[in-house]
């Protein structure tokens, strides 16, 4: 069986973390991505025996290098809320794994998704929009907004007022905040049993928000909703959902390797054609099979010591 098929099967049926397959993936990536080979060499890694022994590849490299095995057919671009944008290249095979992981990761039993995230035909570089496009293969997805901003609140409210109980509202945390503010200001609410799934990114909210604070605020607009969060990023082809009593549930095919508290180290099998063992500058706290995201790593406070830019 070729590696692609093995990985696809594994994502669909994984019942535990397959370290042998993970090591095979690393060797495959090392052999096909020169930047990764140089990275491992600089860190003195020749033969790899255990995942925990390897250095995890900082996602920052996606801002500087074209990282992919094979010939890309396009790329996703990160939002760049924290500076320079990442470009994550893809091709047909890599998108097949993306699709597989996204559908497998999605934990909700629903039929209808209302997406405030714009359609992929509008946001052509957005991996989040692409994910919604993938969902179209399994669910009915209604796009109720044309951009990552909300410009026409009236039209949006009109579309959302028709939401059925049991459906799911998918939006960014920033959109959830803006929408909730608008509902409050205008004394509106959607009093139906729905699921609200927001995509994190609390740094874009303008002021620091705790997730629970945001949900408390949004509960005015969606009094009977259950709130969930999706944790994903352009550089990761798998996503995590907060179905673990408010924490994100770890996955076998996108395994968070961080022990206790620290920066996120994740091994994403769906990243077969880029890099699987990634280090992300988000602080997480791992509790059993769940983890919490505590926030983005802060830059060192500048003192008299010189800080390079």
């Amino acid at each position, binding site marked *: 069986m070729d590696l692609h098929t093995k990985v696809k099967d594994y994502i669909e049926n994984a019942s535990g973390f397959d370290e042998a397959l993970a090591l095979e993936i690393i060797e495959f990536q090392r052999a096909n991505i020169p*930047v990764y080979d*140089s*990275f491992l060499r*600089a*860190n*003195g890694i020749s033969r790899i025996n255990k995942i925990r022994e390897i*250095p*995890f*590849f*900082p996602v*920052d*490299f996606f801002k500087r290098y074209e990282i992919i095995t094979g010939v890309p057919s396009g790329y996703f671009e990160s939002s760049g809320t924290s500076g320079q944008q990442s470009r994550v290249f893809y091709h047909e095979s890599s998108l097949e794994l993306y699709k597989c992981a996204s559908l497998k990761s999605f934990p909700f039993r629903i039929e209808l998704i209302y997406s405030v995230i714009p359609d992929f035909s509008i946001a052509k570089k957005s991996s989040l929009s692409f994910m919604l496009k993938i969902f179209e293969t399994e669910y009915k997805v209604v796009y109720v907004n044309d951009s990552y901003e909300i410009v026409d609140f009236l039209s949006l409210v009109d579309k959302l007022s028709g939401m059925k109980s049991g459906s799911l509202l998918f939006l960014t945390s920033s959109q959830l905040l803006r929408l909730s503010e608008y509902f409050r200001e205008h004394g509106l609410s959607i009093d139906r049993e729905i699921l609200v799934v927001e995509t994190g990114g609390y740094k874009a909210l303008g002021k620091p928000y705790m997730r629970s604070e945001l949900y408390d605020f949004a509960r005015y607009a969606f009094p009977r909703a259950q709130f969930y969060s999706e944790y994903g990023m352009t550089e990761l082809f798998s996503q995590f959902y907060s179905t673990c009593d408010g924490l994100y549930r770890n996955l076998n095919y996108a395994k968070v390797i961080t022990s206790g508290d*620290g*920066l996120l180290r994740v091994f994403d099998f769906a990243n077969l054609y880029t890099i699987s063992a990634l*280090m992300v*500058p988000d602080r997480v706290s791992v509790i059993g099979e769940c983890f919490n995201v505590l926030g983005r*790593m802060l830059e*060192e*406070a*500048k*003192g*008299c*010591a*010189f*800080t*390079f*830019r």
Partner: protein
Amino acid sequence: MRSLLDNYLRALEEFFIDYQNGKVPSDISYQKLLIEQILQKCIECTCEIGSKGSFVKGPEKVFVFLPGNVPVVMFQIMPVLLLSGVRDVFFKFSSKEGKFQECFIGYLKRHFKDCLQVSGDFLSHEESLSVAKQYDFIIGFGGEELGQKLGLLGKPYRFFGPKFSIGILWSELSISALENIAFDNLSFDTRGCLSMKFLLTPWEGFEDQLFTCFSVTSRELFPMSDFDMDQSEYEVLRHSLEVQRIVKGGDFFLLFADKLVEIDAARTLVVVKFKDVSELESIIYPYKDFIQGIATDGYYPSFTSCSYVAKFGELQFPPCGWYFENGIILDNFWEVKDV
């Protein structure tokens, strides 16, 4: 002024004893050994400058922005204020060192009583700038952004901007030199302007000894309580492709490269190899204006902004009468241009 210096000396000695006995509160657990050694040096210097009897006329009211990451600057700036007849000084505390700094202010107040008005507070940058305008002179330690803001206040000021220190290991490779290099690097977790960020050397094949010396020294200069190994690791790994080799210790990193890698990682030394003087100078030259101190066993280039040339292991202990930057002495400390 002599009595002010005497009062300061008593405040410093009392603070030192209380610090040794664990009675000084702080937000961060610092490297105790290092702070004690620096306090001792400050006590010696206060005695020495008191005996010299040289004074200058300075402004009456001075506002001081203290830097983050290094809690000892307050001890180092006090003598110049006292020798200049300053009557009123306000310290803007840094966020992480605030408790420690506030505590020291308490000692100063007790000992100075009415002889010197000394106060301090945690203020936002904007509030600080507004308060600072009410003072005759502003001293700022910090990043470039602060420097730019001070320039817009229309008050006389002296700004001590961000800098780093280097080491040049040339004539003798010894275990003792490597231990001292580890001390210079791990001091304040490499976050002070007198902490050695880069070691330049023509020597090769000493990686294992250097690693051992760092492992030993890191037990004395253990990480400060706000040190985050993951944060350093992320920064180090981000620069992996600019170095030849990375060696990870329990709480430090050693990087081997052929240039000054622009990295900001705590408890990390970048070892840069050079062949001859001309190569050494060309490596350093682009950074010449940002070099605060040089630790060396002999040679050092003269074209840099370095204000202090030290032996290995002594970077944190500049001589008495050192006022942070090259060319600044007591006599010209308050002279500023273009206000």
